[in-house]
């Protein structure tokens, strides 16, 4: 007897789109690389001097070496961990805030709504980059600051989206039905409405990821990025000095690595939206 939920259904549609599938695979690969790197199984020795400084790509160092003669490839791999963790953690920060606030605002309306709307209007009215910079500056450098800064700036969009969607859903009859059988606000909001807006969260997250990864580069350029660890951001930033010496491999490595995963996340985001967003059903 077949039993398939919307999710399974969505997943099926997702896997039918080969681009989406490809992206999914890429993302999975990156995640596992990140995981392995985090556990130090691969690229654990990125800091080791393996050759002369700024060696061009060659047989045993496919991406050459950096200024300290460290293997660029393992730096790239190591950087994957940073990139993914930035994406992950910022999402972990942004999603709960965004979802809860958005849901409360959308569901209860009234002064709750006013308050929360005010909150995110205030936040979104300050240019993102400015908040990013000032927060990282004040929290001092390092990946932790990057997490907080990105998290603190990126909940807003999600909040707005969720709010709108919840507003729509709370009028639906299934919510009223839940009320009719004696369900309280909590049940209506968290057990009935939220599961129906999760697609937004998912789509948003996949885009959040790539936004975070890209922001990390900008922050690194401003010298506010990750410290003591090779991140793509710092590598690309290094390139700013090295390119003129004809040292292109560090830039190439990091950019390609980033290119792939960002591309993947974008495509995945699109595919997810197409397959999860009820609005687009039946295309």
């Amino acid at each position, binding site marked *: 007897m077949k039993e398939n939920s919307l999710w399974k259904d969505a997943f099926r549609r997702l896997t039918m789109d080969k681009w989406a599938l490809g992206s999914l695979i890429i993302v999975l690969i990156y995640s596992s690389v990140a995981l392995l790197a985090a556990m130090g199984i691969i690229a654990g020795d990125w800091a080791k*001097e393996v050759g002369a*400084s700024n060696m061009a790509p060659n047989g045993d160092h496919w991406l050459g070496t950096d*200024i*300290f003669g460290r293997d660029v490839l393992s730096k790239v791999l190591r950087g994957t961990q940073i990139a993914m963790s930035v994406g992950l953690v910022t999402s972990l920060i942004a999603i709960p805030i965004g979802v809860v606030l958005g849901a409360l605002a959308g569901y209860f309306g009234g002064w709750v709504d006013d308050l929360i709307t005010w909150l995110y209007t205030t936040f979104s009215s300050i240019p993102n980059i400015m908040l990013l910079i000032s927060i990282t*500056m004040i929290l*001092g*450098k390092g990946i932790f600051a990057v997490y907080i800064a990105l998290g603190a700036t990126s909940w807003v969009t999600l909040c707005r989206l969720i709010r709108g969607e919840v507003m729509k859903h709370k009028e639906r009859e299934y919510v009223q039905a839940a009320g009719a059988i004696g369900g309280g606000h909590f049940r209506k909001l968290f057990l009935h409405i939220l599961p129906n807006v999760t697609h937004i969260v998912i789509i948003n997250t996949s885009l959040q990821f790539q936004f975070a990864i890209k922001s990390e580069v900008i922050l690194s350029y401003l*010298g*506010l990025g990750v*410290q*003591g660890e090779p991140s793509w951001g*710092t590598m690309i*930033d*290094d390139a*700013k*000095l090295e*390119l*003129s*010496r004809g040292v292109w491999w560090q830039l190439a490595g990091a950019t390609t690595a980033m290119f792939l995963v960002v591309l993947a996340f974008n495509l995945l985001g699109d595919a997810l939206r197409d397959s999860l967003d009820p609005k687009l059903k039946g295309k």
Partner: protein
Amino acid sequence: MKSLVFVLSCLMLSFACSKEKTFDEREINLISPEKISGFDPINASDRYSGNETGKVYEGLFEFHPLKRPYELMPNLAESLPVVSSDGLTYIFKIRKGVLFHDSPAFKDGVGREMKASDIIYSIKRLADPKLNAKGWWLLDDRLVGLNEWRTKNSTTENTNYEEEIEGLKKIDEYTLQMRLKKPYPQFLYALAMPYTFIVAREAVEHFGKEFLNYPVGTGAFVLPKFEQSSMITYLRNTKFRDKFYPSEGEEGDDKLGLLADAGKKIPLIDKITVHVVVESQPKWLSFMKAKDDLLEVKDVNIQQTINSKKELKDEHKEKGIRLIMKPMLDVTYFAFNHEEPIFKNRKLRQAMNLAFDRATYNRLFHENTAFDAHGPVPPGLGGQTKEFKNPYIKYDLDQAKKLLAEAGYPGGKGLPTIVVQTRSDTISRQQIEFFEKCMEKIGINIDAGTNTWPELVNKVTKKQHQMYTMAWGADYPDAENFLGLLYCPNQAPGSNGANYCNPDFDAIYKQATIMQDSPERTTLYEKLNEMVALDAPWIFGFHRTDIYLAQAWLKNFKHMEFNHSQFQYLNVDLEVKKQLSKKF
């Protein structure tokens, strides 16, 4: 497809607009690597704002553009001052016929003659508590009555410039007497620095808070209004007094053609355009496109500039580009915070000095153009001698390990992870990474704390650091300016960020600093230099090298540490420019 058309038309326009170079304008294009914030001499703290103010303003004295070692020559002052035997009273004769630039500030817009009172005013202005000038330290506690005047006025509604100060007396319109509290041998240098450049009271009062955008000086160039943009254009001061290109300099200058214009009236050019370019790539590219005539080559581009033999690369040679390399009067160092108990341990400090691989560092970051610093004082200043070799700056891991063990931390055991504060830009990040690796080799764990400039300065001034790294450039050519970095009373927030205290050192320093320049003083300086060198209050870094690239047609450029006054001597050879520009 409208927009596509638009894009294309933009491109078209852009070709149309990229102006054809004309070769009849006697113009020089320079680069300033930092944003220029304004033209108020008393706040011209960094080298670059100094350079800009130096184009419009002048001081009583200036450094001779050619002679080395650096030598002061009278500028707005007619001659060197008469100094009383106790070295406290100075009598200055003021040059006659020096005119301020024309400006609406003056009666019917015509610049008036500069007089003694203007000098007094300018110096008082430096001391004005309301303005809280960055340059105040220069005369802080130097002139008799000036500090009192400052404190008195710090509470009043507005500063009273009328009040006579004992240390600053006008004898007549062209004669001025200054009186020092205690001997201050660097005093004349102070009067050559941008801080003490002469401004006109009318201008200050007329423009008020906008004064910094309307520079009204006596200099060779005029800038009617400063628009804060990426391009500043100075025009020759047509009313500039008769000032002539010097006819003698360092030997060899004539061969370099630096004396070609000897005796000619300056300025020799009509226009200076300064482009503010922060990033290194555009800087390099626009010089290579001959959009600029002079390029200060920074770490990044050194490798593109010179080959392994430290000679100019051929591709540049054939464009006629000249390479100018001269040691800088500066020192880079990793400072210990001597208030940290562990760093009271001299052997530890010495060990870390020995473990620092200067050769590689030099190669990686300075393309071997820098010189190991044996002590704080850079070569070229009295106080530093070729003979003196600091035994602790050679790269010797065994020795280092040995000392580390003796220090009580065999193999680094027992040492906490040491956090070194540095700046957060790319190079600093790489440099500190390198430092980490060095110390690792003897088992010392280093952690990098990267900061924006403000944060770093804060940590240092607030003593919130274990170690930090910095570079110090000379304010004036005197070892005192460097040795002061280790003088106990200069502790943070003073310039002695290491909070190093060494009574013997302080004693001699005190004595030396009030001596006029003399062999005795130099020997004292040498003593001080070697003394601290051995005590390893810092991990000594390098004395870096200034590297300039100059286009063939840029004439009369000679490397100069304190170059704010040098631009008035520059010249351009349009013929050469016309010929060579094809090559770009």
